[in-house]
Each structure stands twice: as structure tokens, then as C-alpha cells.
């Protein structure tokens, strides 16, 4: 226990001298890095606009309220598109994620040194790129529209679903698999009766969880032209129709809250 002598009395200290010096240096480096970053940000900021920000915010607020309620009649189709993008995207992603997950899990992969790294690479690369970037790319390739949105959401979700799924596969109870193998089952039968029943609850949970996230992401895909309610948002922003923007934001907020509620309910029922 580190102690310090003061007037012949031993006082308790949390760290030894060396430890506290180390901590101090670490904090110094951290603060220096932060100060440098802040300086860079500040350098590329027009501070005049920032000081003016409260007035602008107030101005936007007065323009945006009240929302243009009549505009809601035109939002039915975009919301339906958004829902479809999220749902179909999730379904496609799950179909693609299942084989990837089986190839990536240590206990089911056919080859640990060759196929597993490839599966992991697919998982990392699809996960680390945002769905908006996938959408940008797909719009350049297959043209704007809902279809590009569906594919963008699907690709983005593969990594997420496959990662959670392969972790679930790695945590299964091996004795059940052994029992099925002992009955003389083939590789596929072992998978269908030994592994799949164990990961089914996890699978359903992942599906609903990702669906909820996808609803959020698909609401903004339209900003780059991939269909859904974001398309309306971007066109309203372009003509500075703030009452429409506020209504759209409200609708998005409600959709997000509902999807989160649904997903929490379903996951609660499964687990």
C-alpha cells in the first residue's frame, strides 16, 4: 500500500509516486492532443457565423413552426418505401449473413486458415462502411431508386448480423452437437438438428434488432437519392421549405420510436 510520511505520520495514497507520474504524463499527452485537434477545428471555422448562430437558430425555429400538417398526405408513399427498404434489406442481409457466419465461426468453418479470414474480411469491410456510402456507390452503379436503398441496407447489415451470429454459433453447447453426430447424422443433419435449434433465438433477436437500426438508416438514405422519406427531406431542404422539413422530421422521429418499441417488444417475447 503506497503511503506518504508527513510529520512522522503515515498517510494513505492511492498511487505510488511512479504511478502518479505516469498518470500525469498520460493526461498531459491526452490534453495536448485534444488542444491540437481543437485548434485545427477552430482554424477552419468561420467564428463570425458561430457567434451569429443563436439568431439563425431562432430564425429557423420561427420558420419551421408550426409544421405544415397538410403535407402529410404526400408522405404515405415515402414512409411505405422506407419500411420496405428496411424490411427487404434486412431479409436479404440475413440470407447472405447466415452462410458467412457459419464460415466465420471457429467450430463450423471448413478451413480455419483459408476460408475463415475471408469471411472475417467480408464482415469487417461491410460493417465499417456506412450505408449512406454504400448507397452512393450503388446509385452510381445501378441508378437512383428504392432498389439501390434495399441493396445498400442489405450489404451494410451483412457484417453486423454475421458477426453477432457467428459469436452465437461459437457459444453453442457442444454436447448436443456430439449427441446428434453420435446418431450417425451427416454434416448437414448435424447443422439442422444440432446447431440451428440452439442459435434460433439469437438469430430472431439479431434480425429484429437490425431491422430497428435499418429503419433509422433508411430514413436518411433518400438524401443521396436512394428512395424513402429522405428524398422528401432533401427536396424540402433544397427549397428551404422549413415547415415541411419540421413535419418530415417529426414523422421520422415517430417512425423511429415505433420501430424501437416493436423491436423491444419482440425481443422481450423471444428471450
Amino acid at each position, binding site marked *: 500500500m503506497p503511503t506518504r510520511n508527513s510529520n512522522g505520520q503515515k498517510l494513505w495514497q492511492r498511487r505510488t509516486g511512479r504511478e502518479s507520474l505516469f498518470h500525469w504524463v498520460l493526461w498531459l499527452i491526452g490534453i495536448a492532443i485534444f488542444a491540437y485537434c481543437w485548434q485545427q477545428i477552430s482554424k477552419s471555422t468561420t467564428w463570425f457565423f*458561430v457567434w451569429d448562430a443563436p439568431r439563425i437558430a431562432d430564425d429557423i425555429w420561427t420558420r419551421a413552426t408550426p409544421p405544415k400538417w397538410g403535407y402529410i398526405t404526400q408522405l404515405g408513399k415515402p414512409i411505405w418505401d422506407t419500411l420496405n427498404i428496411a424490411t427487404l434489406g434486412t431479409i436479404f442481409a440475413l440470407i447472405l449473413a447466415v452462410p458467412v457466419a457459419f464460415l466465420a465461426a471457429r467450430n463450423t468453418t471448413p478451413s480455419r486458415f483459408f476460408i475463415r479470414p475471408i469471411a472475417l474480411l467480408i464482415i469487417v469491410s461491410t460493417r465499417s462502411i*456506412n450505408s*449512406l456510402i454504400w448507397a452512393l456507390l450503388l446509385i*452510381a452503379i445501378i441508378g437512383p431508386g428504392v432498389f439501390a436503398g434495399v441493396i445498400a441496407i442489405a450489404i451494410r447489415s451483412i457484417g453486423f448480423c454475421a458477426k453477432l451470429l457467428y459469436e452465437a454459433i461459437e457459444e453453442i453447447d457442444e454436447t448436443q452437437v456430439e449427441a446428434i453426430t453420435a446418431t450417425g447424422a451427416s454434416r448437414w443433419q448435424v447443422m439442422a438438428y444440432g446447431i440451428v435449434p440452439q442459435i434460433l433465438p439469437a438469430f430472431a433477436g439479431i434480425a429484429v434488432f437490425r431491422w430497428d437500426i435499418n429503419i433509422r438508416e433508411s430514413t436518411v438514405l433518400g438524401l443521396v437519392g436512394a428512395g424513402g422519406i429522405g428524398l422528401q427531406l432533401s427536396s424540402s431542404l433544397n427549397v428551404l421549405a422549413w415547415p415541411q422539413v419540421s413535419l418530415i422530421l417529426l414523422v421520422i422521429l415517430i417512425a423511429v420510436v415505433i420501430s424501437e418499441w416493436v423491436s423491444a417488444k419482440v425481443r422481450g417475447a423471444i428471450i
Partner: protein
Amino acid sequence: MSEAAFNVQTKMGKPWKKPPFVQRKWLRLILLVGIVAYLIAAYMTIDVNWSRVYQGLERGKKFVMAFTNPDFITRSTDIWEGMFESIIMTVASSVVGIAISIPIALGAARNVAPLSVYLICRGIIAISRALQEIIVAILLVAIFGFGPLAGFLTLSFATIGFLSKLLAEDIESMDRAQAEAIKASGARWMQWVNYGVQPQVMPRLIGLSIYRLDINFRESAILGLVGAGGIGATLNTAFDRYEYDTAAAILIIIIVIVMALEYLSGVVRARVQ
């Protein structure tokens, strides 16, 4: 007893069948019909222009080929500047976001804060989680003008919702006995938090912080699309000009940095836990 025997009689000699996922027959039927009807309806509303898709395949192939031959050189100054700005935004916003979310997390833990503070902090978390980064970024760009400041504020705001919620849950599930012991020694509130609560949640806080750093970097890559600074603007321009080799180079850099961060977070989390 008799029923079981009856069941054995009827099941005798018949092959075993897997029990269905949904037990009730009518519910199964309704679900099946509903799903099929939805899929058909959804498919009908998505009009895919297959000839356009077919034309696009050529470009798609070009893009995939670009990954084998990425061009880091031609636009190297733009890429470097964008990346630098993204990293700066990520670091600054993570620091500020974490610093703000710690007091909010304390306030949002029911065993630390009184009810009124708890409700306010939970409200802040709910707002921050419900609003999407990109939408916040649009509004902040409109208010603060173009540049990394809007991106920095967006990411800080998003960090608060994420980190405070998870940290608050961890504080709520901490061991009461340790905190009580510190309190019994006559500690002030700050000392109680510092020696009773903090050591218990520190590993999780470090793990979450690094995870959030990773997320912030990924998000900073898209904020440029709406003018909030970072690599997104460069990427967008590269796509618009069909410069797939430059776009591929940027995507590769993003993937590599994310992989490095993920590896780092794994190492750090393994060390602190």
C-alpha cells in the same frame, strides 16, 4: 397417465417430425399468409429498372476492379486533408462527448441520482438517441455554417446518448456493498463517487469509450456528405466524377483504420478487464 399412453400408441411406428416453430396452427397460417402478402406488396412497389441495372453491372465491375488497383496518388492532398479532418473531428468529439456523458450517466442512474435529476438526464439521452447523426448534422450545418465544427458538435451530441445510456446501466448494476463501505467511512459525495462507484465502472467506461471512438470515426466519414467536414465530401466528389480508383483508395483507408481501431479496442478491453 392414460393420455400419455394414448400418445405413445398413436406415435408408434411413425417417424419423428420436428415440432413447428409456432405451435398454434391458425397463428402459423396467418403469419405465413401475412408475410407472403407483405412481400408481394413490397415487391410490387419497388419498380426495378432491370435494363438500367444490367447497364450498371459494367460499371460495378469497374468499381470492383478498382479495388485491386486503388489510386492513392492523384488526389493524395484531398484524401490526406479529408482524412486528417475526420480524425481530428473524431478525437475532439469523443473527448468532449465522453466528458459530458459521465455526469449525465451519473444523473441517469437511479441508485445515484434523485428522481428529478434522473428524469432530466434520461430525457437528454432519449433525445440524443432518437435523432440521427446525419439529421443533426444537417440542422447544425444550417445553424453554424459549413465546416468541421458542425461535425464535431454532431458527433459529441451523438456520443452523449450512446455512452450515457450504457454507462448508466452499468452504474445501476454495480455492487452496492462497496459503495456503502466508502460512505460508511464518512466520505463526501465526490469521494463516494470517486472511490466507491468509479473503480467499479472504469473497465466498462474505457471499453465503451474506445468503441465509441470507432463509431465516431465511421460516422465522420459520412458527415461530409451534408457539408459537416471530413472525408465524406472527397468521397462524394470521387463518386460523382466516377473516379472509382480514388473512391476505392478512400474506402480502403477507412476499412484499415476501422480494423486497427477494432484491434486496439480488443487489446485494451482485454487488458482492463
